[in-house]
């Protein structure tokens, strides 16, 4: 029994008028405070699984439980960070970060107090009044992460949030993400196609098979933090994971 539980999640998509099985019974148990990374061949349904966990899509079978309660809808207890950030361009950084708090009816002063704590954590304080068109892709993802953390969710769901970043910015954020995780003790489920990224971040890495996706294998990554990308000791982990992943990609 963990914080977040996925029981036999199944999902079908319609392809050429025929049902196409995408998720073939995903069973997953995430403990409180775990950092779980999911890797898999592109199009395998790992993002779909994350979206189902977030309640943005309905599964065709199985259920998701949070603290043993079955979930039926989306909600701020599981906040999603989207690949392109999905920041609101009509709001400045601060208002973006405070969006969820405003919706919840929290007064301005209190909102400010909370948002500035996370803006500070993400090193965004000086950009509080900037608009998204003035920010680099890396900055935008920082805002997206701050916007998610502000909600103080039970589980943070991240859908390839660093996929569009240049390598330098990504390396920086990969280290910062670990510090944030250590500081906030959040439970995180992180989807990526990048094995090195998964090894740097995860306490556990799950490999999804090619469609219909199942969990093929899982790896515990017991290694000191913060992990950095050029650390050679991480290579064996990557190699083992790639050995499982490669045949799936070729399918």
């Amino acid at each position, binding site marked *: 029994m963990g914080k977040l539980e996925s029981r036999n999640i199944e999902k079908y998509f319609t392809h050429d008028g025929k049902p196409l099985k995408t998720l073939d019974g995903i069973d997953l148990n995430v403990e409180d405070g775990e950092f779980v990374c999911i890797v898999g061949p592109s199009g395998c349904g790992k993002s779909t699984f994350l979206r189902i966990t977030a309640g*943005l899509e309905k599964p065709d079978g199985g259920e998701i439980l949070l603290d043993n309660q079955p979930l039926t809808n989306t909600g*701020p207890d599981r906040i999603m960070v*989207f690949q392109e950030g*999905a920041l*609101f361009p009509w709001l400045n950084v601060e208002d973006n970060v405070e*969006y*969820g708090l405003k*919706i919840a009816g929290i007064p301005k002063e209190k909102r400010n107090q909370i948002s500035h704590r996370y803006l500070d954590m993400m090193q965004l304080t000086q950009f509080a009044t900037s608009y998204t*068109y003035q920010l680099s892709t890396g900055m935008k993802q920082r805002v997206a992460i701050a916007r998610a953390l502000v*909600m103080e969710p039970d589980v943070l769901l991240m859908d390839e949030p660093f996929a569009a970043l240049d390598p330098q910015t990504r390396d920086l954020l990969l280290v910062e993400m670990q510090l944030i995780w250590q500081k906030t003790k959040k439970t995180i489920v992180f989807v990526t196609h990048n094995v090195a990224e998964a090894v740097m971040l995860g306490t556990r890495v799950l490999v999804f098979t090619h469609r219909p996706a199942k969990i093929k294998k899982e790896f515990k990554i017991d290694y000191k933090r913060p992990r950095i990308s050029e650390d050679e000791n991480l290579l064996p982990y990557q190699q083992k994971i790639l050995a499982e992943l490669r045949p799936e990609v070729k399918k």
Partner: protein
Amino acid sequence: MKSSTLAKKIGFYAMIIIVWQGLDSADIWPDNIFPSPVDVAEDLAYGIADASLFYGIGTSLLRLSIGLSIAIAGGLLLGIFMARVETVNQTIGSLVLGLQSIPSIAWVPLAILWFGLTDTGIIFVVTIGAIFAVTINTYTGVKNINPSYIEAARNMGAKEGQLITSILIPAAFPFIMSGFKQGWAFAWRGVIGAELLFSFLGLGFLLNVGRQLNDVSQVIAIMLVIMGIGILVDGVVFKKIEDKVMTRWGLR
């Protein structure tokens, strides 16, 4: 505006006035058919001096603002409703497309029969002329919203009502803006057209008075005023808002 562009524009309009004056001096047509620029300017000056021009502009703009405000409120509501509920789109949506093809002036007889020769009748024509442009643009805008915006907002706890004000309207705003602009254009044509036929105060009424008095220079003067207000609203007011929206929404 760059100074060279401005210089070209001034030169162009100066040339029109010179050619116009030249044609008048050539005495091809009698003055009561083809007035000189000076006659028209004098008429404008009279209108300004006895304030009748301002009264006309004020009346027309007031009717326009009331009608356009109703059209904007109604069009936003209808457009969002159409975009969010497929059945509404399939039913009311098809009617909206049909109604949009009716020129606003064609609503005048109905407006007179329903409301008599009153302000309400003119406002009705303005509203009905503008509302469908706002509706259709709002619909398109909401349909084109990046779905992640809506998902992110719902994920953070937004209910459908909060979604409308905090996401749908601002996210669709570049389109809604075009709706306002088109709506304004239809409303402006609508108000002048309706005033001509209702013949009850306003710039359209002044045009009609000019015709009845055989005063060609007054007719042209009022037409210039109508054009001037159009340029001011389109080229200054809407352009400013549009520039800001395009930049902030990252559309340029």
